[in-house]
Structures are given as C-alpha cells and as structure tokens.
C-alpha cells in the first residue's frame, strides 16, 4: 500500500468522487488558483476546470447557502470553509437550513452537502484562528460530523460523505495534514459512519479520542506501557455523529476505566457527552470516574509556551490514567 500524507489522501478522495459522479463539484475560497490554503485541492482546478472547482469570494454564508441550494436541486456540492473558525459566519446556513430542511419539508427535500473544514490549534494562530468546534456541530440533529485521524480513514470517510443524503461536516485537523499513513488503492473503498475503530487493544484503561487527540492517546499509551506497565486500549471514534457508543461501552466494561481526550475546551465540550454516556451505560463497571483530558478553558494564546500549556498533551493523558489507579 502506498503511503500518503493526509492532504493527499483527501485530494484522492475528491478526485475520485469528481470522476465517479458528475453531480459532484467543489466550491470554496482559494481552492482553485491559490491551490487550497492547505493544498488539499491542489491541481484539481487544472484537471476538472472552473465549472467543477469554483473559487469563491469571501462569503462563507453565501457559499454554504449556495451549496444548500445546489444540493436541493440535485447536485452533490462540496463546500470548503477554509477553517472552522470562519464557519461561525456561516453557521446559520448549516443549522437553520442544511440540518433542518429535510425535517421541515416532511421528508420532501434533502440536502446532500459535504462541508469540509480545517480545525484545531497548535500553530500559533491566536484566539480567533484556533478553534476546535466539531463537538459543537455534533450537537445538532440532522448533521453528520466526521473527524478522521488517519489518511486511510480520511479518504474512505470523505468518499462515504459524498454518498450521503444529508449534510456532512467533515473535520480535518490542521496538525495532521502532513501526517503520513498507508492508504489502500481500492477506489471503491468507503467506511460507514458510526463505526469506531479500536486502534490499540489493552486491558487496564480505555482511552477515547477523535481527530488530533487520537495521536496524543497513542503516544500516551506507549509511555504508559513503557513506564508503568499499564496497557491502554484506544478507541478512535472517527465520527462524532453518529456516535459508536456501543464500542466504547463494550471496551470500558472490560477495562473498568475510561479517559476521554479532546483538543476543545473542557467546559461544555463533547467530552462531557462521552463521559456522561459512559457513566449512564457502564456505571457498575467503572472503578473510577471517567476522566476528561481537554484544552484549558482559555481563548487560544498566541505565545508558543502558553499555547502549548493550553492544549492537551500525552503527559496529561498519562497523568489522568495514573490518577485512576
């Protein structure tokens, strides 16, 4: 299997979908002539032309709304919002239109729209440019929220997104764009939504993560194994909505301990949902309260040291696990 960077795996998915389905087209700021602000769409304008790879003005609300309209009319648009931070000026289109029209029309219409967004901090972009809001989107019925952690999953899930009849929020962690991984060449390979992946088996504790935090979990598991002889099981959620709670519960009932890891602020974050559901469904199996390792509740600082302190690190995960023993 060829090894690809995350951004290349995403590009392959887009290419293959553009070829497979003529209803598919891409819209976004600087996805064409500029080559994509994170180079995901690089080269697609030359290959598919302006009609299917559209550079747009800086009008997030306008282009997401246009995507909703094009989807209602039978197309399969993908709108790239450069980063999730800018989705805040388009969120009304996502929530009040994309996620609700199927319901409000009594099932007559539906909105097969893929919205890709880069998310996450860690690049010293400051408070307005470092949000991790995928958990917020997962709150809304009618949406799918996809958060891949590896190139192969990213490709298979993005291809799956184009086959969905509903709006899909597809999250790409900026810190993972250059990460590499083996990606199967099979162009028909897709991954179903709502199927978590146990990427490491263990018996002492279950660590749950998604997107970037899966990698902190992996590094933490190695440290725990080496330094403490603790064997950690790691579950990569892959999608937040639908959520594969069964996989988590099954694991926790074996390990009796759980840690949830995410980049986002802890207070009111998605980790609370995971923690609460684990308690609700595995209360009698828990030897300790579910622990949450999250970002600190502070607007993201620009300064490098402060930003590092604000984000969760593998050491924090290790600490949380040790505190449970």
């Amino acid at each position: 299997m060829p090894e690809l960077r995350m951004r290349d795996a995403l590009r392959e998915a887009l290419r293959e979908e553009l070829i497979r389905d003529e209803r598919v087209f891409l819209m976004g700021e600087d996805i064409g002539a500029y080559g994509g602000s994170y180079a995901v769409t690089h080269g697609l304008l030359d290959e598919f032309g302006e009609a299917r790879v559209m550079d747009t003005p800086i009008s997030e609300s306008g282009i997401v709304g246009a995507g909703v309209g094009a989807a209602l009319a039978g197309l399969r648009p993908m709108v790239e919002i450069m980063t999730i931070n800018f989705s805040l000026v388009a969120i009304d289109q996502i929530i009040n239109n994309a996620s609700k029209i199927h319901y409000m029309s009594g099932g007559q219409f539906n909105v097969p729209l893929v919205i890709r967004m880069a998310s996450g901090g860690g690049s010293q972009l400051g408070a307005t440019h470092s949000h991790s809001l995928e958990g917020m989107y997962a709150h809304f019925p009618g949406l799918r929220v996809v958060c891949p952690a590896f190139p192969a999953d990213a490709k298979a899930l993005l291809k799956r997104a184009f086959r969905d009849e509903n709006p899909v929020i597809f999250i790409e962690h900026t810190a993972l764009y250059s990460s590499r991984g083996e990606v199967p060449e099979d162009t028909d390979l897709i991954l179903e939504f709502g199927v978590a992946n146990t990427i490491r088996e263990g018996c002492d504790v279950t660590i749950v993560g998604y997107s970037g935090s899966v990698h902190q979990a992996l590094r933490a598991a190695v440290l725990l194994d080496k330094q403490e002889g603790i064997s950690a099981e790691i579950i990569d959620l892959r999608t937040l909505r639908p959520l594969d709670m069964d996989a988590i519960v099954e694991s926790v009932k074996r390990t009796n301990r759980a840690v949830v890891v995410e980049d986002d602020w802890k207070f009111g974050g998605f980790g609370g949902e995971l923690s609460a559901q684990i308690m609700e469904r595995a209360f009698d199996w828990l030897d300790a309260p579910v622990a949450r390792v999250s970002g600190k509740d502070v607007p993201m600082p620009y300064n490098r040291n402060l930003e590092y302190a604000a984000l969760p690190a593998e050491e924090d995960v290790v600490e949380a696990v040790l505190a449970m023993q």
Partner: protein
Amino acid sequence: MRSGLTTESVAGPAIDDYPEKLLHHFLHQMAFIRRFEERCGEMYTKGKIHGFLHLYIGEEACAVGALNALKDQDRVITHYRDHGHAIARGIDPKRIMAELYGRVDGTSRGRGGSMHIFDRKKNFFGGHAIVAGHMPVATGLGLASKMHKDDALTMCIFGDGGVGEGEFHEALNLSVLWNTPVIWFCENNGYGMGVKLSDSIANDIYKIAAAYRMPSERCNGMDVLAVYEAVRAAVKHTRSGSGPYFVEAMTYRYRGHSMADPELYRTKAEVEKFQGRDPIERLRHQMVEAGLLTAADHSELLDRIEGEVRECIEFADSSPNPDISTLFDFIIKEPSNA
C-alpha cells in the same frame, strides 16, 4: 434623495392587452388568497392554528402577478409570509391549510407549519423563517440550473426588512458573479415588523440592487398587471441567459405583522389610505369597466371561493395529527447507494 414609484394608482398596463381568461384567473387567485387568509386568521383565534401566523392580506397582487409569469419547471423559494405564494404557485390549498393545522395531510406532514410550506412537485422550495437566510440558497438553486443547463429559473421572494441582512449582499453579489438565472423579487410593504423602511435601509432598495450591476426595476405591487409585466421582463432577461434581475414591488400589508402585533407603529389612517388602493378592487373595477365582469359574476365568484376555502378548513379539520411514533422520522435520510 429617495425617489421612484409608490403604490399610488399610477396608470398601469391597460387590461385590454390581456386574454379574458387570464384576467379572470388573476381575480380568482387574488380573491381566493384574500379569503383564505381571512379564514386563517379566524381559525387562529379559534385555536385551530398555532405558532406564528403571518397574513398576506393586501399584498395579493405581488404573488399572483409574479408567480403567474413563471413556468412549471421554474423554482420558487420564499420567506415565512408564504401562503399567498404557495397558493399562487398552484399548491393544493387544502394541504396548505392542513399544514397550518399541523396535520399529516399538510404539505410537510405537519412538521413545518405556516412559515415552512414546501412542495417538491411544484418546485416550491419553502417557506423560510430566518430573514434573508433563503437568499443564498436561491443563488445555489440558480447555480444548479446553470450547471444542469436546464431551462429552469429561480424566483426568490423576500421582504424589505430582509435587505438589512448581510446575506442579501452575499446572495446578490454571488448571483451576478456567477451569472445565475435568479429573479430577486422584493415585496416592499414598507415595514419589517414595526420598523419603517427608512429606518432600515439607507437607499431605495432597487437602487442598492442595481449597484451589483444587474437590471433592477421597481413596480406597483398593488396592480397585478404591473407586477406581471415587471416579472415578465425579468423572466425574458433571465431565461435568455443574461443573469439575475431584481424587481421591487411596492405594496402594503393590511393586517399586523403576525397575529400578535399590537400595531403601535402605524396609524389606522395610514392603513386605510392603502386599503383605498386595494389590488383586488382595482382589477375588479377594471374588468367591470371593460365589460368583462358583471355584479352577478362577481358575487358568484365570491360564493365559489367561500365554498373552496370552507373545503380547505373541513379537510384540515378531518386530517389526523401525526402519530407520536413518527417523532424521529425525516431527521436523517438514509443513503440511497451506500
């Protein structure tokens, strides 16, 4: 300086230029909408209809003049004051009434309500309750037509209040940049809830629209023939592939913004002034003058309408509520090919 046409009875198109059948159709539709809305108001007071109810009374010439200039394959998307548009589009009024009642035979099976009328078969893309939120969607509907190279154009209906929202700007700008077949139809009834137009937008609306470099016209929204002509010109332009077109129809709403409106912001005299320019009365008068309508014809028409609207109410009354077991239907559509 603000300027331009108002709703005053300036001489409109001469009716002898129109086929008799069409004129009767216009009169019937306008009178039907008027009566349908009056009865909705009554049913609301009776507790049969709930939530927000926005009546269209006084604005009938806009919906009837504009939507009759379209073809079946064309797409319509509008805001929450949508009953008149839905009826003029030919959606079964029984099902509209049932939707207002929240019943299973409603256009949205009772899920949407008054502000969210949808009908796929009629290419009616809703009823949208977030002011101006549907405008970028209209640009996207137009974009799809351009890509499909189908012969459908999209009409987007909105109010003067919607012009204050940023999405008005984004949607218009994109529609011109992308040369999409979209007709922007602004129903300027002078108020956004209780806010006067002059307090909500710095210039005449059609002039702001013109700044995006598309043709932009104002017409008398109290004259169904004037609206019909203005929109026909827009259709000609847009269907020929020349891009979007903006029409501002000057009209007035006789009733409160919604059933809850205390109407503190305007005088009775003002309302009466506009009622003196009633669009239905205007056409009726023209048809009588032209010998196309007798007093007998007219009362016969009103009787027919009375019965038709009664049927709508009976239909809605007899339609069942959705079953609680269906609460989770229509949230997610299962993938067709996955």
